[in-house]
């Protein structure tokens, strides 16, 4: 009796697993289907439209290939322009993101946790947050000069806000009973921060980081409009725009889109690892 029940249960589990797997496969297939359909629609519409401003995706892809990905195998098929423009952009973006995110986390925790830091900093931070960076380019320029330093400062200055605000929000909404538990067991500040406040801030922090990831790509482009810039995806893109080379501009747009997509997927992988407990705990309801 019990044995049969067990067998039945095991079968049921297997069934459920395969259902889940099939569901996953179906979701992935659905995603690709959506993508393919959209690209087909795009191709058709642009061909019908025939506007130089909206080249068909097939043309864009060809342009991307010739411009960036038709290099020799020794450089992983990257062409010189790709090495000259894409790599520095990615480097700037990564460094800017890392710096901005770190600053955002640190400042966010400070402002979210300490009333004193909040009082001193909040006004100034809110002020800075509202400032349009394009209006400050001259100031950036005289402070940092041409090139990398100004670009990084520019990226960080834009990236920091979503991380900062969301981290502060997260740090402020730590479950009070968790804090009380810490207090009762006299955990040191460092332990509280590392073991309790940080983990419970993470879900909200990640919302900010996810915003920051795609934002970093956008401001990377803007940072490459700064005076004196000579390379980068954004540089190429705006150069193409000024030359009315719209296919090249679209190539830049599509490259940014693909990068954005890849970065986001990467981010989600990291998030799933870091926030696994959170997602699991949230799935009480199936």
């Amino acid at each position: 009796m019990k044995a049969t029940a067990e067998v039945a249960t095991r079968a049921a589990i297997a069934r459920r697993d395969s259902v889940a797997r099939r569901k996953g496969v179906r979701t992935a297939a659905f995603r690709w289907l959506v993508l393919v359909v959209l690209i087909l629609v795009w191709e058709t519409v642009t061909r019908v439209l025939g506007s130089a401003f909206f080249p068909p995706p097939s043309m864009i892809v060809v342009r991307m290939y010739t411009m960036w990905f038709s290099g020799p195998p020794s450089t992983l098929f990257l062409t010189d322009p790709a090495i000259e423009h894409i790599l520095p952009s990615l480097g700037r973006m990564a460094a800017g993101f890392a710096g901005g995110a770190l600053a955002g986390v640190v400042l966010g925790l400070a402002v979210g946790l300490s009333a004193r830091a909040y009082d001193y900093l909040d006004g100034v931070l809110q002020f800075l947050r509202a400032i349009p960076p394009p209006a400050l380019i001259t100031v950036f320029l005289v402070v940092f000069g041409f090139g990398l330093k100004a670009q990084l400062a520019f990226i960080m200055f834009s990236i920091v806000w979503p991380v900062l605000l969301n981290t502060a929000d997260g740090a402020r909404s730590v479950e009070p009973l968790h804090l009380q538990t810490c207090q009762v067991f006299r955990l040191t500040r460092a332990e509280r921060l590392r073991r309790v406040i940080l983990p419970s801030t993470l879900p909200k922090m990640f919302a900010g980081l996810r915003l920051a990831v795609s934002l970093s790509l956008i401001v990377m482009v803007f940072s490459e409009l700064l005076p004196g810039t000579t390379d980068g995806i954004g540089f190429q893109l705006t150069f193409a725009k000024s030359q009315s080379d719209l296919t090249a501009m679209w190539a830049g747009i599509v490259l940014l889109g693909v990068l954005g997509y890849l970065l986001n997927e990467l981010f989600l992988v990291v998030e799933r690892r870091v926030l696994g407990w959170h997602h699991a705990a949230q799935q009480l309801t199936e």
Partner: protein
Amino acid sequence: MLEITNLSHVYGGGSPNAHHAIEGLNLSVAAGELLCIVGPSGCGKSTLLRSIAGLITPTGGQIKVEGDLVRQTPDNLAVVFQDYSRSLFPWMSVADNVALPLRRKNMDKKARREAAHEALESVGLAGAERKYPFQLSGGMQQRVAIARALAYRPSLMLMDEPFGSVDAQTREDLEDLVLKVRGHHRMTIVLITHDIDESVYVGDRVVVLSKAPAHVVGDLKVDLPGPRDQITTREHPDFVHLRAEVGRLVRGHAAAA
């Protein structure tokens, strides 16, 4: 009313540390019956309740409520969760918490408010209407959750250790309240409790579950002369006998496992 056949549930199916919470559980509850479930901690009582409420899909077996297979939450059901404090909505006043489910009931605003007020009064919380859950003590929050379920007047009420956080006196009052409401409105009630006395006092039947994976190891009909009364009923020899019987079943199994 409620028909459970060969129910089983496995958490984390597939993974190496899958947990068999319920296995081959059969149970049926007649309409209007008050069934008490007792069993060791972690055996699967809450899991059973969640399955009945359609909140989880059990991995095996069937549950029928009024003849219909439970796929979603059955109609006219109310649940008092074990983790009552998390089941209250922190952004609503106590009265709003109680009144919210009544929106399903074609009641106008005033009627809802009155029903909420009445239910809160019946659990001894008159005057707390406008407070927020966080301003209440644990026991008071638990009573709000009970009031919410009572005000809803479900035909099937599931209660998961509903009186665990209140003092002895209030607990007795609440037991009597549930009995009274059940009588008035012909609800079917499934009540999980750890208090063996309580199970015998309020139950028409007491079902004892085994350690995980849970299945029924005892099913006792409580045939005490009604109406029940906290003093006379508890003194009744049948009560004392049944209580000992349930106790033996619970312990016996807890010890054996």
